Every structure is written in structure tokens, then in C-alpha cells.
């Protein structure tokens, strides 16, 4: 363990990037709006993501109204329904989850946790946010153009995505969607380069890679993956845009639409699916790995115990990241691709379950003989484990090629991916906001509102998505505006669907309480002090709370230990900060 823990006597290595205070901004606009401070950019990213996330929340309400009470709401036409599901999915996956984990938490935490003054390229970092905002605005604009936004499903499969049988297919909807995605990827690439270079080059002295908190490992690996995966989506979007606007045939074979022969020919719809999922599957882990990292730290801090098996945890993150690039076609078992692909992708997909399971074991084993403080971040971390284990295990159904055949394209899939990459990462986002809000604002979030928010969200989300698996098992296909009562259903699912819809309305309302809490506590929250959780990692050791521009005052912190020295035998307190040079002599000699 010597290489990651006690190393007080080792020489501190020289700085790789000289300690230069980034130039302070002058004037209100440069300081608060066009800010180049990663902390402001982080808050801008997070607020924008939460705002557009609220739109996605309302859309989910509307689609649940239709599914729970079909025929009651006249304004929900089939067109509108498909627009709701499409925009809900795309907003949640890209514009909320990806943006808040990498743009939000990445920006805030990377410089502070690695002991840097800021991101390495602050100006590019600022541009990243403004291009992201532009992408969001283009997306929002599609609600207001004739024909409305695209209703092609968030997977945007051609040919239907750009034909007239799909809402927005022959209007502006799909064009704005594709343009918005292209902008998002450009903006993300600027931010992503920053995160990677900052982690690799701007760590303070003593902060070796194997001393990084797992939060940083998760965000760092996810960013590397995103930089490799998003180009596939970029290419797919550009080509589809050409097919739609210029009449090229990258993804369009010869086809007859509503009795009329179109001028396309020779393209391959399956090629789009491969490109989309070459991005789309790593995307699952682009969202999951930061959540894995963050939740590891939440559990360690609030259980007052080192994370169990740190090195295994790091390697599991890296291995999952690498493997996630060779599993994409498990989304395509019934796409009509060559059936032999099934053997390969089923095998790689189930292999990825092993490092993922190791992470779960290590989180739970960290709780073993801990000193578990049931704070809000800890509660959300526990909720994450439950929902993630549940959603991960149903992945073993869908990944195992032949079991996927009856289940694919049913509500089982919807339940699975919402549990594993919707509910579970969002639990981490909430836990993380309750955890770091005190550092960002200097105040604690209101505990009573937080408790209500937690219980309604955790139990409500479970009540939504657990029974939904069985709706799919019955055979109900996904993306159905209205199923009716087909003969294959012996026990009608209508009552269950209504129950799920009511639960969704309640869970949604709890999120509005959460957003209210974010604003209310800004003024009325309890004063947090600089380190309310008594945590070891560097962001809690800043001279000011909230940290000022440049983060560290006169001189950078020096790092002497890993981020998990909790409850070290012989130590005066139950935590030793990473920049604390004093190593206690344990009663039984050195470990």
C-alpha cells in the first residue's frame, strides 16, 4: 500500500506546469457571464443542464399521461407523443446527463481535486460552455418551428427520421436536432480536451495518478471515452444531414414511400445504427463512470472509511471504459445484422459485467465495519447502489443475445435503461449536489426538504421502473402511442400503467421541490464552514469557501497521501487531509 498511502518522506516531484495565477477578470460581465473560471463555467453548465432537464421532466409527464390514461388527453396526438419521447430521451442523455457530469462536476471538481488553479485552457473552456448553450437553444428552437421537433425516437434511425411519416422528418425538426448535436459535440470537445490535459498535466506536486480521488478517475476516463466516441455520432449526424438536405444516400436505400418512389439508392440504414451505437454504448459509460467515481467518494466520506480496493476500483474503471467500445452491437441483436455478430457481442457484453460487479462489491464492502453517517449524500449513494444493481442485472437479460430476442423493443428495455442509466446516475447527481453544494455556495442545503426529496425520489422511481419490467415481459412493445387490449395480454396492464403514471407525476413534483431548495438555501441555508463533511480531498482544504479565482491563495497545496485516509489507526481525528504532512504512527507499527 506504500505507493498510494503514507509517503511523507518521499521527495515531492517538480511541477509539470509552472504555478501561474490565471489573470483575474475585470468587470461584471467578464467575471460572472463570460467567465473563464472553471467554477463559474461549472455552475453555468449545471444550471443550463437542469433548466433543459426540467423541459425533459415535463415531457415525461406528458408521455406518462398518454400511457397511463390513453384517450383522455386529446392534445396528445400520436405526432406529439413521438415528439415527447424523442425530445425527452435526447435531452436526458445528452443535454442533461452528459453535460452535468462532465461540464458541471468535471469543471468544478477537476481543478480543485487535483490541486490546480484552473483548467489549463480557460478561454477554450469558456467557449465550450457558450457553444453548449447554443446547442441547447437550437434544440429548444425546434419546439417552435412549423411541424415541431423531430419525433424519430432518440435513436434517430433512418430512413424514417428524415421521411414524412415521422414528425419533423420533412420539416425543420430533424435538421435542428442534427445541427444541435453537432454543436454539442464541438462544444464538448473543447471542454473535454481541457479536462484530460488538466488531469494529466496540472496536478499539484505529490498528486500522483494513483492518489487521485475516484471521482477524478471516473470523470477523466469518461472524458477520454467521450472524445473517442462522440466523433462517431458527429459523422453520423453530418451524413444524415446531407441525406436530408442535399439528397445524398449514405443511409438511404432505394425505397418507396406511401406509393411514391424516392430518388435515394444504395445507402445502408444499418450503417447508421453501427455509428450511432459506437457512440451510444460508450455514452452509457460516459454517464456511468463519473457516477461510479463520485459515488465511491460519497460512500467513503460518509462512512468514514477508505474505499475498499482502491487500485481494483481504478482498474475496473479503465477496463470498463475500454470494453465499452467493443459491445455496441448488443443494441442491434434484432437489427438484421449478420447473426454471427451475436456470439461476439453477447460475450463481450457479459464480460463487462465482471468489472462492474467488482465495483458494486467494493462499494458495499466499504460500508462493512464503517461508521455510516446517514446524511443525504449517503442516502442517495445507497439508493444508487440499489437501482444500479437492479438495472445492471437486467442488463444480463438483454446482453445475452437470445434472451434479448423476446424482450428487445419492449417496455422491459425501457425499464432497464431508465433504471441503470437514468435513475441510478441521477441519484448520484443528487447525492453529489447535496455533498458539494456547501463548497460551491458556502451554505448547506435544507435538510427537511432534502429528506422529502430523497424518499419520494428513491421509492417513487423504483415504483415506476420496477413494475415496468413486467409490462415488457408481458410483451408490451415500447414506443406505442396506444396498445389497446391485444389478445396476448391475459391480465390487462392498464391499471399498472396508470399506477406508474401517477408515481411519475409525484416523483416529478419532488424534483421541483429540489430545484426550489437549491434557490432557497442560497440565502437561508445553514452556514457550511470550509469542510462540513470532514473530508480528506483537496477541494475541502481551500483557503476560502467558496473558493476564489485561482483556488489556492498564495501557494498550491502539496499532497502527501491518497484521498482515503479515514479512521486511520493512531490518528487524532477520523480523517487526514491529503495535504496534511503528518503521518500517524499506528499502534501496531507501520502498515
Amino acid at each position, binding site marked *: 500500500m506504500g505507493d498510494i*498511502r503514507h509517503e511523507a518522506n518521499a521527495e515531492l516531484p517538480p511541477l509539470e506546469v509552472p504555478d501561474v495565477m490565471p489573470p483575474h477578470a475585470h468587470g461584471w460581465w467578464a467575471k460572472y457571464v463570460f467567465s473563464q473560471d472553471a467554477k463559474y463555467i461549472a455552475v453555468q453548465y449545471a444550471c443550463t443542464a437542469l433548466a433543459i432537464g426540467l423541459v425533459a421532466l415535463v415531457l415525461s409527464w406528458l408521455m406518462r399521461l398518454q400511457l397511463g390514461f390513453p384517450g383522455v388527453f386529446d392534445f396528445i396526438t*400520436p405526432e406529439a407523443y413521438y415528439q415527447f419521447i424523442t425530445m425527452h430521451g435526447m435531452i436526458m442523455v445528452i443535454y442533461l446527463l452528459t453535460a452535468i457530469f462532465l461540464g458541471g462536476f468535471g469543471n468544478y471538481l477537476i481543478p480543485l481535486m487535483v490541486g490546480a488553479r484552473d483548467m489549463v485552457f480557460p478561454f477554450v473552456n469558456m467557449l465550450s460552455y457558450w457553444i453548449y448553450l447554443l446547442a441547447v437553444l437550437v434544440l429548444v428552437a425546434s419546439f417552435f418551428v412549423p411541424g415541431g421537433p423531430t419525433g424519430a*425516437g432518440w435513436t434517430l434511425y433512418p*430512413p424514417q427520421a428524415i*421521411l414524412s*411519416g*415521422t414528425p419533423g422528418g420533412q420539416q425543420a425538426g430533424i435538421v435542428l436536432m442534427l445541427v444541435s448535436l453537432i454543436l454539442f459535440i464541438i462544444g464538448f470537445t473543447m471542454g473535454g480536451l481541457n479536462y484530460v490535459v488538466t488531469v494529466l498535466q496540472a496536478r499539484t506536486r505529490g498528486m500522483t495518478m494513483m492518489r487521485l480521488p475516484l471521482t477524478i478517475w471516473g470523470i477523466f476516463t469518461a472524458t477520454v471515452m467521450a472524445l473517442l466516441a462522440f466523433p462517431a455520432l458527429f459523422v453520423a449526424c453530418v451524413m444524415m444531414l446531407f441525406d436530408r438536405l442535399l439528397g445524398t444516400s449514405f443511409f438511404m436505400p*432505394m*425505397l*418507396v*414511400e*406511401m406509393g411514391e418512389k424516392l430518388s435515394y439508392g444504395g445507402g445502408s440504414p444499418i450503417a447508421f445504427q453501427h455509428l450511432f451505437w459506437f457512440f451510444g454504448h460508450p455514452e452509457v459509460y460516459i454517464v456511468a463512470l463519473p457516477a461510479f467515481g463520485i459515488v465511491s467518494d460519497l460512500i467513503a466520506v460518509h462512512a*468514514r*472509511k*477508505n474505499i*475498499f*480496493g482502491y*487500485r*481494483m476500483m481504478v482498474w475496473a474503471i479503465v477496463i470498463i471504459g475500454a470494453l465499452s467500445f467493443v459491445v455496441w452491437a448488443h443494441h442491434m441483436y434484432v437489427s*438484421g445484422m449478420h*447473426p454471427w455478430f451475436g*456470439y461476439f457481442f*453477447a460475450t463481450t457484453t*457479459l464480460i463487462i459485467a*465482471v468489472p462492474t460487479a*467488482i465495483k*458494486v*462489491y467494493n462499494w*458495499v464492502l466499504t*460500508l*462493512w*465495519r*464503517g461508521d*455510516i*453517517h446517514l446524511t443525504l449524500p449517503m442516502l442517495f449513494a*445507497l439508493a444508487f*447502489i*440499489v437501482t444500479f*444493481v437492479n438495472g445492471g*442485472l437486467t442488463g*444480463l*437479460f438483454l446482453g*445475452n443475445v*437470445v*434472451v434479448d*430476442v*423476446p424482450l428487445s*423493443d419492449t417496455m422491459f428495455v425501457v425499464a432497464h435503461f431508465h433504471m441503470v442509466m437514468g435513475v441510478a446516475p441521477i441519484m448520484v447527481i443528487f447525492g453529489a449536489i447535496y455533498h458539494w453544494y456547501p463548497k460551491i455556495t458556502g451554505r448547506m442545503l435544507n435538510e427537511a426538504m432534502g429528506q422529502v426529496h430523497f424518499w419520494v425520489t428513491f*421509492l417513487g422511481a*423504483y415504483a415506476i421502473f420496477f413494475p415496468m419490467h413486467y409490462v415488457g*415481459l*408481458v*410483451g408490451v*412493445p415500447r414506443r406505442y*402511442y*396506444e*396498445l389497446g387490449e391485444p389478445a396476448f395480454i*391475459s*391480465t390487462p396492464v392498464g391499471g399498472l400503467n396508470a399506477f406508474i403514471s401517477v408515481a411519475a407525476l409525484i416523483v416529478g413534483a419532488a424534483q421541483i421541490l429540489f430545484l426550489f431548495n437549491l434557490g432557497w438555501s442560497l440565502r437561508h441555508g445553514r452556514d457550511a464552514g470550509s469542510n462540513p463533511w470532514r473530508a480528506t480531498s483537496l477541494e475541502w482544504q481551500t483557503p476560502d469557501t467558496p473558493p476564489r479565482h485561482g483556488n489556492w491563495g498564495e501557494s498550491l497545496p502539496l499532497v502527501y497521501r491518497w484521498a482515503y485516509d479515514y479512521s486511520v489507526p493512531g490518528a487524532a481525528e*477520523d480523517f487526514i487531509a491529503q495535504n496534511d504532512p503528518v503521518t500517524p504512527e499506528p499502534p501496531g507499527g507501520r502498515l
Partner: protein
Amino acid sequence: MMIALVLALVVIASVAFHLLSPWWWTPIASNWDYIDNTLIITFWITGVVFAAVVLFMAYCVFRFRHQEGRKADFNPENKRLEIWLTVATALGVAAMLLPGLFVWKQFVTVPDTATEVEVVGQQWSWSFRLPGQDGRLGTSDPQWMNLDNPLGVNPHDPTGTDDVIVEGGELYLPVNRPVKMSLRSIDVLHNFYVPEFRAKMDMVPGMVTFFWFEPTRTGEFEVLCAELCGTGHGFMRGYVQVVEQEEYDEWLQEQLTFAEYANAVPVEDQPTRLAERY
């Protein structure tokens, strides 16, 4: 405290829902009970793991919750435990994967005895084509499509003239005879899905996809489109009638061949498509 109890209750409620709720798959009507069996194995393995992990967590939260004077252990790693858990997980995964791959081989290997049936999807209706006397389907291509030739059968291919065309109606299949479903689409992606048959496959314009199965009981089964295909996706339904051989032969006799089709059916009598009704 509360959370430990709730975690345990989540496990109990989930298991109870699984065992007691009336929502379960529809009775199977094909040879793919292997798929159902693999699914049951997976339910058992994953169910045990879920219960074990969450109950262990509930115990930890209850037993090691913060109390005055409590101090956590310091325990960075445990190589043996980590290796043991890794190996056990790998074995569990293999126990699910191996039967899965074995059944997949059967799923993608069409028996020689299977008769071929073509399904053609379009927004938003189903059509079918069955081989005629010669037992073979003629070639097809979108370039041949017109009102008299809605499936694009190649008029210059002699093997196609006796093909039986069923437009917008129901498909009859004889019970206990393996059938290869050749799937085509003339516009966008569709997916031929009959819940009782357990099998499904996308239909992709520009290529022919397939799956095979053997109907094992007679009856009427609803066909649903399972790949988003535009606004009418949820309304794209059809029926498969699985019948005894004699009834099937009678039905087949009544259908029109490709050669008859173009001449025999006045346009106004052709079945209306959902696309027009919709």
C-alpha cells in the same frame, strides 16, 4: 435505521411482486421454449444476486450506522476476497452466457425442412408472399413496385409468377411445420413481432432479414410492429392464423398468385391500407 428497513422491504416487495403479480409472459406458441428457459435461469441467478447485495447492504447500514464513539475499520484491500469474488462472478456470468449462446446457434440455424414465407412491411401495413407450386420465391426489387405490383416482384423472373400474394390481410401458417420468415421493408425499418412466438427481427429496406420458428399450437396471433416506423407505428397490426394442414391448403388455394393478382383485382377492391385510412 429507517433506510436499512426500507432496503430490506425493497427486496421483499420486489420478490413478492415477481412471484405473486399476475403479469407474466403470454403462453408460448412456438418451439422457442429454450429461450424461456434461459430467461428463467437468468431470473434466478440475478434475483439471488440482487437480494444478496441489497440485504447485505441493509445489514451493514443497520449494524454499522453512526453511534457515539463508533470508529470505522481501516482496511484498504483484501486480495483474496477480491479474487474470490471475481471468480465467483465470472462463473455466474458464464452459467448464463453458455446456454444463451447454445440457443442462439439454434435460433440462427434454419432447418432445411423450413418453408419460406416472405413478410413485407410498409407504413403502416403488412403484406405476405408465399412460394407457389415450384416451392420458391421469385426475386424482388423496389424498382418493380407499382400499384399492380405492390411488393416489387420481378416480372421477368419465371419463379415469381406462381408466388402467392397476400396484401394487407392475414397470414395462415400450418401448425408444427418449421417456417423461415424472410423479412423485407419497402420504406422504413419495421419489426415483425408476435409475442407468442418469442422471435422477432427488424425489417430493413434494401436487404432481406430472417428468423425461423415452428408454430406449436393453432390459434389467432396478433402481429405488432416492434421498430419505430413513424406516426402510425402503434397501429401497424396484423394477424397470423396457425391452422391444421388441411385448412392451410384450402386457404392457400383461395389466394391469388402474382400472375393473377395484377389482372384480377380492380384497384377499388384492394384492401385499404392503414396509411390511407389513418
